[in-house]
């Protein structure tokens, strides 16, 4: 298989396989989570489940102020990584080109300088978080193989993507192939690992909010 065939395969069949596993896995997991259900509570609700559930879903996206110094680093670096990752994912023009081809609609891109900063910050935050995970005795104790695996699977698309944009290390064809391949690995892994939190975090936030709302207490 020559480099062009390989690129064609990862853009075609490879992406189809990855997308199928990701979408099937996630739609199954999320819906299954929602349908798990709880026994209907016969108590009289003291507040709205839905309104409070949605409010918490949104509210919990922001930092809680009462954090220890050690927790602060994880939270700040975590935010930088997530924001940088999302900005790069959804606002780089090349990504919009791809999403437009799949979703049949698009949106305006952010300037390249903004993307560059977001990507660099995101990569730096990921490295800092990994170092912290290894150095900090508590975190190290808590970490298992999956933590390092998911870190690597998330880091590779960022790294190869950045190298691609800046033409670092390899030719465009090679880097584009590696980048798409790393994204496909990530997509395939998401439904089977804790990376599924990209959706389930909202389901669980809603659940927390809704159950608190039902009881009329602060979540």
């Amino acid at each position: 298989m020559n480099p062009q065939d390989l690129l064609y395969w990862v853009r075609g069949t490879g992406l189809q396989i990855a997308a199928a596993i990701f979408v099937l896995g996630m739609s199954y997991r999320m819906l299954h989570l929602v349908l798990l259900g709880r026994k209907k509570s016969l108590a009289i609700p003291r507040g709205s489940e839905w309104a409070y559930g949605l409010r918490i879903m949104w509210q919990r996206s922001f930092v809680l102020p009462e954090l220890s110094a050690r927790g602060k680093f994880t939270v700040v670096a975590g935010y930088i990584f997530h924001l940088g990752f999302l900005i790069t994912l959804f606002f780089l023009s090349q990504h919009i080109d791809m999403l437009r081809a799949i979703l049949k609609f698009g949106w305006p891109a952010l300037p390249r300088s903004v993307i560059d900063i977001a990507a660099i910050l995101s990569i730096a935050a990921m490295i800092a978080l990994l170092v912290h995970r290894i150095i900090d005795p508590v975190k190290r104790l808590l970490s298992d193989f999956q933590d390092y695996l998911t870190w690597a699977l998330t880091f590779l698309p960022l790294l190869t993507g950045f190298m691609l944009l800046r033409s670092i290390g390899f030719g465009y064809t090679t880097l584009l192939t590696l980048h798409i391949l790393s994204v496909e690995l990530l997509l395939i892994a998401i439904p089977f690992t804790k990376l599924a939190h990209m959706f389930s975090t909202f389901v669980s936030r809603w659940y927390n909010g809704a159950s608190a709302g039902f009881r009329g207490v602060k979540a």
Partner: protein
Amino acid sequence: MADHDSLEHRLAEQGISRRAFLKFCAAMASLMALPPGSAVAIAAALAKAKRPSVIWLSFQECTGCTESLTRSHSPTLESLIFDMISLDYHHTLQAASGFAAEKSRDDAMQAYYGKYLLLVDGSIPTKDGGVYSTIAGRSNLDLLHEAAKGAAAIVAVGTCAAFGGIPMAKPNPTGAVAVSDLIKDKPIINISGCPPIPAVITGVLAHYLTFGELPALDELGRPKAFYGETIHDHCYRRPFYDQGKFAKTFDDEGARNGWCLYELGCKGPTTHNACATTKWNGGAGFPIEAGHGCLGCSEPNFWDAGSFYAPLPAPSADVTTIAEVAAVTGAAAAVALSALDRAKKKRAQQAHEKLTVKDL
């Protein structure tokens, strides 16, 4: 003094000065992307080179490659290279025809056995014994095997000879293949492109004459001097790519401002060729300079690699339908399994008897 068959002597006979020859070598060095100072070394080597015999076979092709080459065949500085080779057979260009033409090829192959350069353009049909393309009643397949035996090296001119090209595109009715698919025991140099840049052929010949060996090749057998970098690497619109400035249609403001054609399907980033520096039509320009993206014609399977107008990151197959089917299947599985779980739970509850002290 100089050998009478040497280039030095032949040039002197034609009244071409050493200075003119140095100028030619400067042009060759520039063409081959060698360090500009190497012109003097090229001159020294070329002056002593012997004329090699060249046999050119045209197979399943459109003659575009020969057309491309003959554009550099008018008596110009570049065409000096043709004073340095002896083109003994080219069925489109030669004056001889019929049996005489075939004989001249056989004679050259015999006289220079093991020494001649074999140039091939066009792919070779292999289906049904290769009946889909024949010359003088003989299949291309047969002719290639025969001519390859005595060749010092083979130059596959054009994407068809190099990678199969358009004849090999789906559904490939003639079972066309590239030269390298059939010949495994000879050095093969691929000069891909549809058509290839004429100056690249000249450059490769000059390199062979200068150094007596084939130039350094990439993993697809193409000379690195011309195919080592992408169109994108040397594109004058590259700064716009780096700034994220893209034309969205062929007639929008961005297109008029000469912005990058990436989103309009330009394959420049994944295409290895020298168009952006060597240019076409006597340096007039290259496709991107005319406002159209690169088609990637010097890469294998360029004809089957998705739309010429789809941007590079876009999937090359239908992902939308697959994702939709997967979403529905996943949801259905979740609903079905949840229902099953609930039914099981209910059955368990019904079958279950209250726990009593006796059970403990």
